């Protein structure tokens, strides 16, 4: 059923309408990934490969399982069945499975194929063409043929292939998933032969699993990968098969031809760029593809998404899908190529190859996977059953994120062209050679639509995600600092844009043209320099501002309204009865005390401490005697500071007194009977203390602010009843209770006070209201619920420590400028906005991201470049005033297909996420859900309508670059913030966290990473700790397993009820599940598994810049339910499973089409 098309459109899944209509269950989904040209860098390719592999592999893997579900569930196509299948597939894939797989898979696979066939055929037969998913979207003809044939073809292919070629197994069988992995793996294996061999042998199952890791490493070594390609060739064979199969389908052939035609077209593309190889493959499609396509396809497709993708996708899908993928690929590839060339060239062919398979795999997967899987599983019976429900989608073959842990090198520009950045979640080293590192700023699309119409047609958002102080990769070169002396940085005299590498010097260097507004400026005399023959200034390479995308200028007096502020930290600690009794106060004090050492050194660092319950207690440390003086502000309706100075003292001088005080505070309030909390008054008081200088206010809050200024009522009880009664106003409980805190926050921001709130609570604290304060002042909320004195202090300390020691700036002002034609529409994030053009950031740190949306106010010329410049004027912790200028220049295009190809999934999704989060408090939940799903549908529809018109309407066609969009959208619709029955605070926290979340954390927040940890030491992988993710589906959870799921914030360790005592002993030091403590404090025991687990967790912590809040989850517990609530691919009472969702999306698109 599935076909991948190579065109610009990456992945495609086809459904037959009839199937659809007939029965949801019968719907087949084919996912096709078009070849994405991968970056040249060998590393990146490998990554891309791996990712693609992974993605594709899952389909395979899942494929097998799916069949079963389908069998049984056949009736319920979408549902649990899929899950079961996946589980089945999983075990094998993930763990020891490999070996078994090999055996079974082969066997099964072969047998499998038949089932698929049989199963599919029925559908196909019933709905002849419908079921077949061809990459068709782009290439209608192809798809059409495929569709009908696909099923058959695929099946056939698998069958045929399996025997002779591995490909079949991989593609068709459950092994496919494995197969996919194997492929990746195979490349590494280097010995294509071996790879092949393995595929053959147990290619599918065992290899896939084992391979993935291997694959990655292989990727590293491009050459090796090629061999794998050979493997791919095998897949091609399958393809070859497909074609043959196609013939059966009358339509198919015809369609193919179109493809063929496309391929031809592709060549041109290929030709243009370096892609020829690709093109070659694509063109060769069936013949040549194997080799070339695989490489290009995989690599390109994922990394580049757009460009290479087409070829690669094409190839990949084609190969696996059999004929179709290739065809698809070509079409897509063609368009892509033009752009890709340059890029592609860089990408390593080897890498490319891997991807193709990946892609190919998926495409082939759908139909085939079904059948093969069951076999693979060895559950032939199942297969049989499955067969009955052939039409279903194989969950194992649908797109899923593929992690890659290998490091790629990313050059931001090449040949005067912007390069398409690697996924935000991947591990890359950015090399700034004109454009900024994508860590600092990246756009939702890497080509800018020339007109607003084109943009709105695409339904995609145009926005920048700016993370101005983002942490660089350790291997990246630091941002250069430029000092223009007293005159300050050179700026355009009209738009005030800062000098950058895209400003064009003319008239022998005497004048320069602003790349933002087009104004011609005189070059200041002392900045004058001759131009070289290439039209660049001769000194361009020596001047960072003329050759780097990001530089930092030293600000002159002109940029200061006062002396740069010192770094001042004011700690506010809740000492009300509950806070003291739950240990929150002690934890906060100890965290602060330990963190003092991490505050910036120097005489300008000031520290103050205050505590509060129903009144506010300041401490005057500047005293003759050692004892501080405690000053209580009892008037919490009209707050003031008791002293003019001395509340904040120099850290260096008073470190000891501070430590002493912090040590004393818990005991001083030991018997405090005050249950009330004057949070609002306390932050006001803290603000007043900071008012003269500005600074950071760090608040540790444990109970609902119940008295004084900004006191809140417990809305939760009320909220819950309302929700249950279906009140349409329920979302209002997620809005701030009143404007008091907002007004205060604006005042705070005006005086450069940034508030961070650490909520250590057992109860409702109305985060919706209090998060306004950090949200407006550039701070953030930390949430520890329910606070546990045993397990949480560690995280509290680490969060605090990171908060104060991470790279950050104060009293910042940020503005984004862009080329004429666009204008900033809106900023969103944690800041305060007083004038339309700038945003004020009392605090800005490396974790904060600001989203900037744009709208057209004019047209761009095709091939013009659109520049973005973000300038952040800030004061460093050491009191230097700096202007960080971040430049990004992207090509403009008139082609919708280019837009889709250059779409940046991660960025776009982060954008959706933020938009959804901001509308949660504003609209009823159902409406928000509808909005995000519609957004997804609209985009896919636009692609379907304008870029894949050729394909049959029965196919669900996903642009390669956005192939994960449905998955993420689904996950988003199930995330905490959008849960109907979630606690208000949990949801509000989610909303507030999302507001400033970086792209790289946005994805895991919604689609967490799950890995198994019981087999950490036995699992074969490529050495990277985090390579093998498990899809978030409960079918992949085994009772005897232990799993770690992390979303960048929480780490849930799920212990299956049958977990081996030995493993438990190793990890937790207890011998039975019942002996597990309710609160987890992870220790390191003296055994490999424990060490490895700690390593893994530390790795994650490092990666996420977050100390995970570890929790133990056990089956049958509420904690277990919590864990399961993260299984976003599962069907839940109120929400669809992933497969169902795809069906839903497809149906919607079809409705729109008709």
């Amino acid at each position, binding site marked *: 059923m599935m076909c991948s098309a190579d065109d610009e459109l990456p992945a495609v899944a086809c459904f037959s309408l009839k199937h659809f209509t007939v029965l949801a269950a019968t719907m087949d989904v084919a996912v096709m990934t078009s070849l994405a040209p991968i970056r040249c860098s060998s590393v990146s390719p490998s990554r891309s490969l791996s990712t693609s592999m992974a993605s594709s592999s899952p389909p395979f893997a899942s494929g097998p399982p799916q069949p079963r579900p389908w069998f049984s569930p056949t009736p319920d196509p979408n549902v649990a069945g899929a899950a079961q299948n996946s589980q089945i597939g999983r075990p094998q894939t993930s763990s020891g499975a490999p070996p078994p797989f090999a055996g079974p898979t082969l066997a099964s696979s072969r047998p499998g194929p038949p089932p698929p066939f049989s199963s599919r055929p029925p559908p196909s037969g019933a709905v002849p063409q419908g079921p077949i998913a061809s990459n068709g979207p782009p290439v209608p003809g192809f798809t059409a043929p495929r569709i009908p044939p696909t099923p058959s073809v695929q099946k056939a292919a698998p069958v045929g292939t399996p025997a002779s070629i591995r490909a079949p197994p991989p593609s068709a069988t459950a092994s496919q998933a494995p197969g996919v992995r194997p492929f990746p793996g195979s490349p590494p294996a280097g010995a294509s032969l071996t790879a092949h061999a393995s595929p053959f042998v147990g290619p599918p199952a065992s290899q896939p699993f084992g391979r993935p890791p291997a694959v990655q490493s292989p990727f590293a070594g491009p050459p090796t990968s090629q061999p794998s390609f050979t493997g791919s060739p095998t897949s091609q064979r399958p393809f070859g098969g497909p074609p043959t199969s196609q013939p059966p389908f009358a339509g198919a052939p015809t369609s193919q031809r179109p493809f063929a035609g496309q391929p031809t077209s592709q060549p041109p593309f290929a030709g243009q760029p370096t892609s020829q190889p690709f093109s070659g493959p694509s063109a060769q499609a069936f013949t040549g593809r194997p080799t070339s396509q695989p490489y290009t396809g995989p690599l390109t497709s994922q990394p580049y998404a757009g460009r290479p993708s087409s070829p690669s996708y094409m190839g990949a899908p084609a190969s696996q899908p059999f004929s179709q993928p290739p065809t698809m690929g070509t079409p897509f590839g063609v368009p892509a190529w033009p752009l890709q060339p340059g890029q592609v060239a860089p990408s390593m062919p080897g890498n490319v190859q891997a991807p193709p398979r990946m892609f190919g795999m998926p495409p082939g997967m759908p139909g085939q996977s079904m059948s093969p899987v069951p076999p693979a599983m060895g559950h032939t019976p199942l297969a049989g059953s499955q067969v009955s429900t052939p039409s279903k989608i194989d969950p194992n073959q649908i797109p899923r994120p593929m992690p890659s842990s290998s490091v790629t090198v990313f050059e931001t520009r090449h040949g005067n062209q912007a390069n398409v950045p690697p996924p935000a979640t991947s591990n890359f080293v950015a090399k700034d050679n004109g454009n900024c590192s994508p860590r600092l700023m990246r756009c939702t699309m890497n080509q800018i639509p020339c007109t607003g119409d084109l943009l709105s047609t695409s339904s995609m958002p145009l926005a920048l995600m700016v993370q101005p102080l983002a942490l660089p990769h350790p291997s990246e070169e630091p941002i250069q600092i430029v000092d223009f002396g007293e005159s300050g940085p050179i700026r355009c005299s009209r738009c005030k844009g800062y000098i950058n590498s895209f400003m064009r010097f003319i008239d022998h260097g005497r004048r320069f043209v602003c790349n933002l507004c087009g104004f011609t400026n005189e070059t200041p005399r002392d900045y004058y320099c001759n131009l070289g023959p290439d039209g660049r200034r001769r000194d361009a390479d020596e001047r960072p501002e003329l050759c780097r995308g990001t530089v930092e200028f030293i600000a002159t007096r002109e940029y200061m309204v006062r002396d740069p502020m010192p770094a001042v930290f004011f700690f506010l600690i809740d000492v009300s009865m509950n806070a003291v009794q739950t240990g929150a106060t002690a934890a906060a004090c100890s965290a602060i005390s330990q963190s003092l050492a991490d505050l910036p050194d120097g005489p300008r660092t000031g520290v103050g401490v205050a505590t509060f319950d129903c009144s506010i207690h300041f401490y005057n440390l500047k005293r003759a005697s050692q004892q501080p003086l405690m000053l209580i502000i*009892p008037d919490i309706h009209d707050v003031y500071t008791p002293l003019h100075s001395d509340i904040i003292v120099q850290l260096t001088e008073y470190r000891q007194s501070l430590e002493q005080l912090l040590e004393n505070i818990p005991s001083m309030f030991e018997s405090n009977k005050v249950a009330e909390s004057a949070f609002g008054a306390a932050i006001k008081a803290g603000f007043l203390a900071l008012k003269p200088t500005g600074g950071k206010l760090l608040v540790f809050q444990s109970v609902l602010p119940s008295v004084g200024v900004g006191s809140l009522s417990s809305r939760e009880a009320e909220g819950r009843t309302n929700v249950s009664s279906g009140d349409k106003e329920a979302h209002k409980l997620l809005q701030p209770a009143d404007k008091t805190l907002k007004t205060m926050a604006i005042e705070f921001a005006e005086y450069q006070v940034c508030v961070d709130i650490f909520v250590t609570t057992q109860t409702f604290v109305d985060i919706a209201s209090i998060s306004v304060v950090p949200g407006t002042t550039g701070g953030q909320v930390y949430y520890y619920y329910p606070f546990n004195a045993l397990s949480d202090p560690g995280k509290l300390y680490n969060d605090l420590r990171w908060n104060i020691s991470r790279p950050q700036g104060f009293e910042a002002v940020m503005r984004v400028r862009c080329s004429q034609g666009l204008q900033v529409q809106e900023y969103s994030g944690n800041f305060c906005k007083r004038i339309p053009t700038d945003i004020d950031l009392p605090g800005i740190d490396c974790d904060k991201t600001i989203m900037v949306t744009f709208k057209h106010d004019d047209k761009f010329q095709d091939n013009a470049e659109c520049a973005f410049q973000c300038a952040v004027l800030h004061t460093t912790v050491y009191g230097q005033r700096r202007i960080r200028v971040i430049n990004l220049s992207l090509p403009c295009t008139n082609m919708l297909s280019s837009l889709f190809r250059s779409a940046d999934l991660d960025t776009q999704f982060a954008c959706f996420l933020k938009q959804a989060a901001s509308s949660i408090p504003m609209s009823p939940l159902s409406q928000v859900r509808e909005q995000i799903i519609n957004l997804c549908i609209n985009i896919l529809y636009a692609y379907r309508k304008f870029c894949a018109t050729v394909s049959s309407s029965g196919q669900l066609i996903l642009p390669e670059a956005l192939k994960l969009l449905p998955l993420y959208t689904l996950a988003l619709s199930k995330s905490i913030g959008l849960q109907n029955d979630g606690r208000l605070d949990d949801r509000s926290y989610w909303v507030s966290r999302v507001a400033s979340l970086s792209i790289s954390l946005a994805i895991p927040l919604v689609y967490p990473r799950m890995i198994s940890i019981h087999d950490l030491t036995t699992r074969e992988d490529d050495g990277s700790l985090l390579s093998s993710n498990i899809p978030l589906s409960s079918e992949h959870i085994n009772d005897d397993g232990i799993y770690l799921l992390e979303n960048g914030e929480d780490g849930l360790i799920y212990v299956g009820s049958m977990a081996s005592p030995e493993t438990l002993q190793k990890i937790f030091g207890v011998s039975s599940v019942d002996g597990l403590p309710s609160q987890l404090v992870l220790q390191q025991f003296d055994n490999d598994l424990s060490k490895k687990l700690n390593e893994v967790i530390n790795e994650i912590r490092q990666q996420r810049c977050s100390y995970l809040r570890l929790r133990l989850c056990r089956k049958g517990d509420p904690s277990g339910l919590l864990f399961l609530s993260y299984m976003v691919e599962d069907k839940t009472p109120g929400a669809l499973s992933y497969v169902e969702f795809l069906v839903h999306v497809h149906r919607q698109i079809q409705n729109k089409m008709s």
Partner: protein
Amino acid sequence: MSEFLDLEAQDGVRMTWNTFPGTKQEALGCVLPVAAIYTPLKSIPDTPVLPYSPLRCRICRSVLNPFSVVDYVAKIWICPFCFQRNHFPQHYMSISEDNLPAELFPQYTTIEYASSVETGPKMPSVFLFVVDTCMIEEEIMFLKSALSQAIELLPENSLVGLITFGTYIQVHELGFGHMPKSYVFKGSKEITKDQLLDQMCFFAGRPRPNVGVIAGPRDGLSAESIARFLIPASECEFVLNSVLEELQKDPWTVPSDQRASRCTSTALSIAASLLGLCIPGSGARIMAFVGGPSTEGAGSIVSKNLSEPIRSHKDLDKGSAPLYGKAVKFYESLSKQLVHQGHVLDLFACAPDQVGVAELKVAVERTGGIVVLAESFGHCVFKDSFRRIFQTTDYDLGLAFNGVFEVNCSKDVKVQGIIGPCASLDKKGPLCAETVVGQGNTTAWKMCGLDKKTSLCLIFEIARKDGPEAVSQPTSNQFYFQFLTYYQHSDGQMRLRVTTLSRGWLAGPGSTQGLLAGFDQETAAAVMARIVSFKMETESDFDPIRWLDRSLIRLCSKFGDYQKDSPSSFSLSPRLSIFPQFIFHLRRSQFVQVFNNSPDETAYYRMILNRENVANAVVMVQPSLISYSFHSAPEPVLLDVSAIAADRILLLDSYFTVVVFHGASIAQWRNAGYQNQPEHETFAYLLKAPRDEADAIIKERFPVPRLVVCDQHGSQARFLLVKLNPSVTYNSNNPPPPGGDIIFTDDVSFEVFLDHLQRLAVQ
């Protein structure tokens, strides 16, 4: 005179008329009101303290006294006030002419009762220090050392609290063991007792009662929560000293063209509320140490802007002191609160400039507080006075708390009111006169703070109409008075002092001489001083000079010996002879001539006047002047410029100042050091004698007077000259004798005054 002193020694009472005019008409003709200056706690050495409750009349509640008629057979006593016959209770059954209870002894017209049964347990006295910090470091140092000395002297059983203020008010929680801790309140914002209750966490962890008055441990507050702020003196030394040690100048910077932000009124209000919450109805003193004008809060007296001067008498007269009225109103309400709670406000105002004593007066005076005005906390006027408060040696003040003063008198006498440190309790009764002077319209007054010297001036009205029936009764030529003073003794015990008096009255023609025989000139002068001060403060457009003159003239017309229209025939009986001189000096005194003084000083002088006994009041009106010379023993001399001589040393005691004035020659000799030469030992003695005398005065006086040692023609000599009768001025015809002095003034001299008096009196 001496008989009056004897009477005073027995009962602490001096009266203007010791023989009363018998009818209302007669009384009006006497010009000066019937008034008594009573010192309730005057130490009377032989006064017994009876360990039981007093026996009271069933009807008028007066206490059994020596003037009661006792029927020993029937065991009945007749109340002299209402003539009610009362049976003695069982425990008096053994009474007989030979077996009298002490209260019936004729010499015990003043007696004390101290019954623990009736008055409950001993109450600790409470001292709440309210300390200004808007001062230069030096002043703060002085104050700190004074305070720490005081802390050592505090009675063991007393409780201590501390509030400091400046821009903000800090209520120190002395009972918090971990570290110095204080509650900080904003100075510009008034805070009610209720808010205080909430904000000071008195109900931490417990629900607050919804109804009823919440105050004190008996009404809802836990002893622990009170002990946070008021700690026993025996335990406070370390804590208080450590807090005081760290006490610093108010940290808020003051622009050079501004006054410090000082919230005296809010601090006092918080202090009052705190005491009201913690120990209502038990003796407590708020001791305020103020180093400058209040500029924040409801009681501010001047804006912060230095360009605006602090109000003067002129401003007050013209009504151009916009903050004055508001501040007074604030302190009036504060005084009501304090009176209600039974707490005292003491004021120690030490600043070169005014601090707002005039506004604070009402609160200090009504609560019977101590007031000390000095230029600096380093000045001995403050230092020594302050130390005296806590000294338990010879001259201790005998501070008592929480007093209630009640009056009973014969039905023909009514009470117009009291001028003095007390507050009306609004207990109306038939005794209340319709005309009110001072705290009137009541027969009971609150004296939150009183000491051995506190003296009240009661103004009476003779209500008796002319008529024959008055004569018919045998006892009717006697008026009876009974003064009851309930108070918390400094040892914490509640006591009742009862003073019962009887005075005869005369009516009808020919009574003039009889009345004159009972006239007490000194008391009259003291009463006139109080009345004129009172009238100046309360009556707008009051012309004190004119009023005094008219009173004097009328008095002299009535009681003088003269032939009509013949000034030269005018003479005064010795009973009245000094009175014109008192009035002359009163006219020139700081009480009447206010324009040389700031409103603060005037208020200060009047407050002291109003609480002092007759002798001291007379000194304030007409200072005493003693001359020391080689020619004679120390002798009092006329308060006249002619007393100045080059070879004399003069000692002037004007109560507030003690001046030792060296004549020009004496000064020269002294400067030459003759006193150090053995052969001039007598000179040394001469120099020393007035100093010794001055020291003796200083030692027994409170507040401690200012000692000025000066030389003739020196600048400080003005302290003497201003008090002297300007008989010789720069434009006198007769020049002063050699070594004498002249006064640069246009004021009339006593001779001129007397001439006019004679002329007018005989008209």
